[in-house]
């Protein structure tokens, strides 16, 4: 089970509290996790990555295991600790805007 933590505004939009838990078929990557997230919560489409290009929105970041994975390929495997559910995959709203 993949654990995903969303920023507060997106939890409100998706009407969820706390972590989201997702079944994700291997390989577990940014893309497959976000695909599963958007399949369950369609209102999140377009809010984390662009509808068409699927590129990460500029002020959204992806963290896991104390690392910033935002610039990794969306098809790179996520850390084993995320895959086995020990660590969450964090979707973060970047600190921006003063």
């Amino acid at each position, binding site marked *: 089970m993949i654990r995903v933590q969303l*920023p*507060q*505004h*997106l939890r*409100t*939009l998706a009407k969820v509290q706390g972590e989201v838990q997702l079944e994700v078929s291997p390989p577990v990557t940014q893309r497959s996790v976000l695909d599963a997230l958007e399949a*369950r*919560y*369609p*209102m999140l*489409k*377009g*809010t*984390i990555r662009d*509808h*068409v290009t699927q590129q990460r*929105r500029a*002020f*959204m970041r992806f963290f896991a295991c104390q690392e910033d994975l935002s610039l990794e390929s969306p098809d790179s495997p996520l850390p084993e600790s995320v895959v086995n559910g020990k660590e969450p995959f964090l979707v973060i*709203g*970047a600190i*921006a*805007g003063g």
Partner: protein
Amino acid sequence: MSKVRVLVGTRKGAFILTSDGKRENWEIAGPHFAGWEMYHLKGSPVDPNRIYASQSSGWSGQVIQRSSDGGKTWETPGGGVQTGPGGFPMGESNKFVYDSSPDTGKALTTHQWYDGTQHPWEFKRVWHLEPSLTDPDTVYAGVEDAALFRSTNGGQTWEELSGLRGHGTGPKWQPGAGGMCLHTIILDPANSGRIYIAISAAGAFRTDDGGKTWKPINRGLRSQFIPDPNAEVGHCVHHVAMNPKRPNVLFMQKHWDVMRSDDAGESWHEVSGNLPTDFGFVVDIHAHEPETVYVVPIKSDSEHYVHEGKLRVYRSRTGGNEWEPLTKGLPQSNCYVNVLRDAMAIDSLDKCGVYFGTTGGQVYASADAGDSWNPIVRDLPAVLSVEVQTLP
């Protein structure tokens, strides 16, 4: 007794203000969508409990929200109505994708950038939502970068009316200081095929065939800040208003100049008259007197606040040129707020109520067509839009 419901969009959420027909005592609900920029909320004239809202943020982009109970509860269209496997909500309400079809898209892909070069269209946000006059599930969206979209399924999916960008002048459009936004959508109640829109900075446009083909309607506009002051397009139109009872007459607040058209936009003439400054954003028209017009003069385009530190609505009862300041109940010293282009609305009671919101977070109401004013609320986030619904 009739009621009014004022829909307020702010930089940090939406608020819904309600009162009975006396418009003296108000209930304030909100913030809805706390922390998000709410550019616009507007109710369907067919079903007043159907309200559409534009919700956006620099982090997460655009979301469309919809209420079916007058703003008490909200949903992303599709969510809560259709459910997929596992009972989860279906639907995505925020997908605005420009038409890039081979027939139209290739010629539509650039507009003028600040430095004069050509720049591709990039969707940023929805500035204005205009529900259909006849169908609560049909709604138009004016977006940045400037284009017009339509949904016929209650906001669930959106399709661009690309004839607007495709009519030929698109490469001459350019962003104003607030971005290249399509901010005004007016549906003609007497002619179902006729729609007016306005873009900053391109000008006003009209379709007579429901959005397939468009033409610029800017003859008579004169803008010193563009190379050809009388150009067909390129004018920074801030807002346009129409009284539904007289749909061929339009009033416009241009960047500078208040303008009037008596022929559905075919030609315009200036009616700024004795205004202390003719820069501004809002313009609106009395519900029952089509020659009574309201504007809020702003000092200048480099000083976006009211003139002389006094918050004054100006009213003309003569269709322009002769204006009187309306000040009773409004601050007349040390006031430096702005009133943005979608932040004024007028109800249809008798006497009609006039409402406007400021960048200082005040929402003012007049229950006597502007003769006197009272703040409904003083300390909201900066107000982006104000709409009012007159309810039975």
